[in-house]
């Protein structure tokens, strides 16, 4: 009996070893670091993949291009991916997917259809950003080689992160947020956009990294506002800052105000705490926005920051006025130019006043145009002469 058991054991183990050679080694995989979607001439999706060139990863890399751009077409995202694999020698591996880029035209037609693949996708590490491009195609953006680092996507992500954390006019949106907003019947989707100026064709070659003058300048640009997954319009930088203030997403922002003597005072605004409250009284909705933040007075062109109460109050008042004006301008733009709720207050109505929202869901955009929105900006000077 014992010999029989041992025999079975060996047989089973031998059968198990059949899988030994069939897995692919790590150096035989192809890393995709960014995926973009452009408008295709045919009726379908056109996918652009940015692939890391494995020869650049050796300890002593030669001077070759670090990334390669490959495009393919298909009917769904997975279809495109499969067609992509036909062009490449090995299996693609999306471990390092960091960014999904939609071009402006695709965004205008709607990004709903692309999202399901990315939500449930299981190979990638941690969250990847969704951005759109402005004025350029996704292919052009992804083929720009950057002088700052070997991997251009990393540079883009870092620029986005810096813009979000340090300047406050951009937003990092991850896939879960996109899907939540697209599938529910409340909320508004906004995505940051990236644009590039300069000689884009020259920026695709590696010679760009050998000169001091940066040939193609990639920068983070306006925020795009969506409705039902389709791009409707843009918000400029100041408007983006105001928008982010409303939604409590500012880590840091800078604002310059006028001083009493014709000088300019620059301030750093941080520790933003905004609160949105919605109220329905007698079937009349209204929104109250409270924005609190701390101010650090940084620079005064008159060379002197006076540590006096009058000075402080003046600065606070100027900031309050300026920001309130920005926000109110934005609200006006939302009501008259966009004509729908670009701020996503419907989310708050859905959560806090569900009955009213259920009843009035279909007319919500109309109601928004005449809905009173009260803004209260409360700056607080934390420190001066920093």
């Amino acid at each position, binding site marked *: 009996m014992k010999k029989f058991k041992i025999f079975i054991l060996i047989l089973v183990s031998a059968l198990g070893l059949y899988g030994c050679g069939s897995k692919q080694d790590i150096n035989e995989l192809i890393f995709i670091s960014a995926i973009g979607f452009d408008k295709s001439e045919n009726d379908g999706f056109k996918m652009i993949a940015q692939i890391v060139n494995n020869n650049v990863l050796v300890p002593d890399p030669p001077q070759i291009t670090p990334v390669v751009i490959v495009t393919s077409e298909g009917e769904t995202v997975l279809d495109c991916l499969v067609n992509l694999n036909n062009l490449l020698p090995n299996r693609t591996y999306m471990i390092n997917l960091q960014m999904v880029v939609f071009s402006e035209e695709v965004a205008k037609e709607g990004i709903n259809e692309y999202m399901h693949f990315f*939500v449930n996708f299981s190979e990638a590490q*941690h969250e990847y950003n969704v951005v759109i491009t402005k004025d350029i195609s996704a292919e052009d953006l992804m083929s720009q080689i950057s002088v700052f680092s070997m991997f251009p996507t990393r540079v883009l992500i870092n620029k986005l992160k810096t813009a979000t954390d340090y300047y406050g006019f951009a937003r990092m949106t991850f896939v879960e947020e996109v899907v939540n907003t697209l599938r529910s019947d409340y909320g508004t989707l906004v995505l940051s956009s990236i644009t590039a100026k300069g000689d884009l064709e020259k920026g695709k070659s590696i010679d760009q990294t050998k000169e001091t003058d940066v040939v193609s300048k990639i920068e983070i640009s306006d925020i795009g506002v969506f409705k039902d997954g389709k791009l409707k319009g843009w918000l400029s930088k100041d408007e983006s800052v105001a928008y982010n203030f409303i939604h409590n997403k500012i880590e840091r922002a800078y604002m310059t105000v006028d001083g009493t003597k014709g000088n300019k005072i620059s301030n750093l605004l941080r520790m933003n705490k905004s609160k949105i409250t919605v109220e329905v009284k007698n079937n009349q909705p209204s929104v109250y926005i409270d924005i609190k933040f701390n101010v650090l007075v940084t620079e005064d062109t008159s060379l002197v920051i006076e540590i006096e109460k009058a000075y402080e109050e003046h600065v606070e008042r100027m900031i309050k006025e300026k920001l309130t004006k920005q926000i109110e301008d934005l609200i006006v733009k939302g009501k008259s130019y966009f004509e729908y709720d670009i701020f996503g207050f419907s989310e708050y109505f859905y*959560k806090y006043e569900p009955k009213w929202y259920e009843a009035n869901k279909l007319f919500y955009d109309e109601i928004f145009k005449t809905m009173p929105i009260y803004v209260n900006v409360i700056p607080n000077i934390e420190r001066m002469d920093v």
Partner: protein
Amino acid sequence: MKEKICLKQFFKLMVVYIIANDTVRGIYAHDLKQDVWIPQLIGVLISVLLFTLYLFIYKNTKFNDFDNSMKHVLGKFVSKIIYVLYIIYFLAIIFFNLTDMQEIIILHLLPGYSDIMLNLIMLGAILYLLSKKVEVLARLSELVFLGIIAIFIAMIVFSTSIHVFNFNNVLPILNKGYLPIVRPAIEMGYSVPFGELFVMLVIFQHLDNKEKHTKVGTYSILTASFILTTVTLLNIFIIGPYAMSYGLSPAFRLARMLDIEEYLQRLDLLLIGYHMIVVFVKIIVLLYGASIMVRSIFKLKEKQTKYSNLILVAIVFVATLFLTKRYTDILVFRRDFFIKYIGLIMEVFFPLLIVIISFARKGKKIVNPNDLLEFEI
């Protein structure tokens, strides 16, 4: 009883057993979205109630061992029929859990692998543990419990440090009224995730000082439910109700979002490996229950239980060979038929019947101790 488990080991074993049900909680997330935590709280209460009722079977037969208690209550012939039904039920639960695990592993860990080999190796490891005694299972559950606590604390720490919590994701509460949560609440009580606890009675017989420790079931269910509900709530807060309903398991979804200092990522792969061990514990408890019942039906001796275990495992393996053609079919079958009807019968109806009969036969003489089987796994 030859084998003894101490109280803390039983507590930990039961917690591990309940947490193994994590994989399938996502069944309800699609319909309920952000209210999915409410039925869990109600289900906990139902589960606690059920388990205390189960324990009456022991109380009324003066804390004999499992086999003799059943025989005393039901008589030898009826208990054999009941045993057969329960054996099939346990094997079915094992089959479902195994296919769940297999799906997740094939999707994430080993894409493209043959499921037969996976099943073979998993069942081989299970058979190895099954050949040891119950004490080994109890000690293993202690270690696994430690791991679960550590992972749970790590999850909370990492998720609070990085991600933004939207506490208002949980609103609006009960948007569509109370009706949609009634059925899920009851199902969560007797079945996935806080149910399927009838087999714990079989392990309960090894506990020493059974009279004093009847509250242990309550504590363990409460602990396990605390862990599971917290994970669900974290999911709702961080991921959002819509994105949460893709895929099945909340804990893996959460672990995918976490990273350590944005450096070590995709921790859900490690979590899948660890969860597999937790599911092994559950499967072994179920197999042990089935093996005790088989032993009682056929009056086997100690040495022959090794063959009966082998046969039980072989039945499960053959089922996975032929019945796993489509995973969605299995899932639909489980949700619409198995949990609704069969779970109700086996976990609620039959045990209540047994408890009621046990009250009726409370004063009567207990089965002759010469019939005691010597229990070793």
